[in-house]
C-alpha cells in the first residue's frame, strides 16, 4: 500500500486547511480589536489630539510571525498539500496600485472596516455590517465590470472580435496571478 496521498486526497486536505485557516484568521481578527470599527478609526486618527496606537500591534505581531514563517516555509520545494507555491511576482508600481490603495483607505477610514473584519462580523448580526458587506461585495463586482469595459474600449476598432476575446482572457489571467 502506498503512503503517498492521491490527488483527490490532497485536494480534500487543502479544502480542510482553507476552512481551518479562515476560522483561525477570524479568531485572530476578533481578539485583536480589528472588528471594532471605533478602535480602527481611533487608530487612524493620527492628527486628532488623542491617538490610539493599539492596532499597530496587530500589524506588528502579524508581520513578525509571517516574516519568519514565510522564509522557513519557502525553503520547502512544495507546500504540504499543494503542488506549488503561488506567490505574486510583480514588482512594478503602477497607477492602479496607488489609486486602488487610496480608494480602499478612504473607505476604511469612512466605515472603520477592512474586508476581513467585515466578513468576520457577519455573525454578529448587525445591520451596519450587512450594509457594509453588501456594498463591499458590490464594489468588488463593480471593479471587475469597469475593468472589462475599459479593456474592451482600448481594443475596440483596432482588433477584430476574436483577438479582443483573446486579449480579455489574457488580461484576466494576468490579474489572476498577481492578486495579493
Amino acid at each position, binding site marked *: 500500500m502506498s503512503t503517498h496521498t492521491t490527488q483527490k486526497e490532497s485536494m480534500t486536505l*487543502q*479544502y480542510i486547511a482553507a*476552512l*481551518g*485557516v*479562515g*476560522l483561525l*484568521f*477570524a*479568531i*485572530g481578527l*476578533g*481578539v*485583536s*480589536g480589528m472588528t*471594532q*470599527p471605533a*478602535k480602527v478609526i481611533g487608530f487612524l*486618527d493620527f492628527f486628532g*489630539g488623542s491617538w490610539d496606537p*493599539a492596532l499597530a*500591534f*496587530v500589524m506588528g*505581531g*502579524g*508581520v513578525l*510571525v509571517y516574516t519568519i*514563517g*514565510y522564509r522557513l516555509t519557502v525553503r520547502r520545494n512544495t507546500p504540504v498539500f*499543494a503542488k506549488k*507555491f503561488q506567490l505574486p511576482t510583480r514588482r*512594478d508600481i503602477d497607477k*492602479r*496600485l496607488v489609486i*486602488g*490603495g*487610496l480608494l*480602499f*483607505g*478612504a473607505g*476604511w*477610514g*469612512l*466605515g472603520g*472596516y*477592512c*474586508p*476581513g473584519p467585515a*466578513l468576520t462580523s457577519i455573525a454578529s448580526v*448587525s445591520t451596519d455590517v450587512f*450594509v*457594509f458587506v453588501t456594498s*463591499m461585495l*458590490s464594489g*468588488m463586482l*463593480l*471593479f*471587475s465590470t469597469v475593468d472589462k469595459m475599459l479593456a474592451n474600449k482600448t481594443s475596440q476598432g483596432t482588433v477584430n472580435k476574436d483577438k479582443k476575446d483573446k486579449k480579455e482572457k489574457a488580461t484576466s489571467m494576468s490579474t489572476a496571478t498577481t*492578486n*495579493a
Partner: protein
Amino acid sequence: MELDYIMIIDTTAWLLAAIGGILIGLASVALLLFNGRIAGISGITGGMLLRPQGDTLWRTLFFGGLILGGLVLTLVYPDAFPSAGEGPARSYGALVVAGLLVGFGTRMGSGCTSGHGICGLSRFSPRSLVATGSFMFAGAVIVGVVRAAFGGVI
C-alpha cells in the same frame, strides 16, 4: 483648547492586539505552508465572486471559515464586536459609500490589509509597501476630515 496631544495607553488592548496579530500571522503562514497561497482576504473573496470556473471551492471554504470564526467569537468572546450604540456614528449612506470604496479599491489595488499589509510587507514587496502607505494615508486623511468637518458623525 486642544493643545495637548494624548496617546491612549491601554496595555491590555495592546496585548490583545499583539496576540490577535500573532494568530493572524500563524493562520497566514498555515495557508502558505499547506496550500501554497497568500492569505489575502480581498483577493480570495474577489476570486470566489468573479471566477466561477474551478479554484473557487477552497476560496469559498476559507470564506466560510471566516464566518464560522465570527460565529465562535459571538459565543466565546462577544466583546469582539461593538454592542448596540457602541460603534462609530455612521449613517447607512456613509456605510454604503465606504463599502463600495473598500470593495472597488482592494480589487483595483490587488490587495488589502492582509495581503499587502501583513503578507506583502513581510515579503518585503515594494508594491505592498506602496499600497500599505497609500491606504494608511487615505484612511488617516478621511478620519481627520470626518472629525474636523462633521464632528466625527457622518
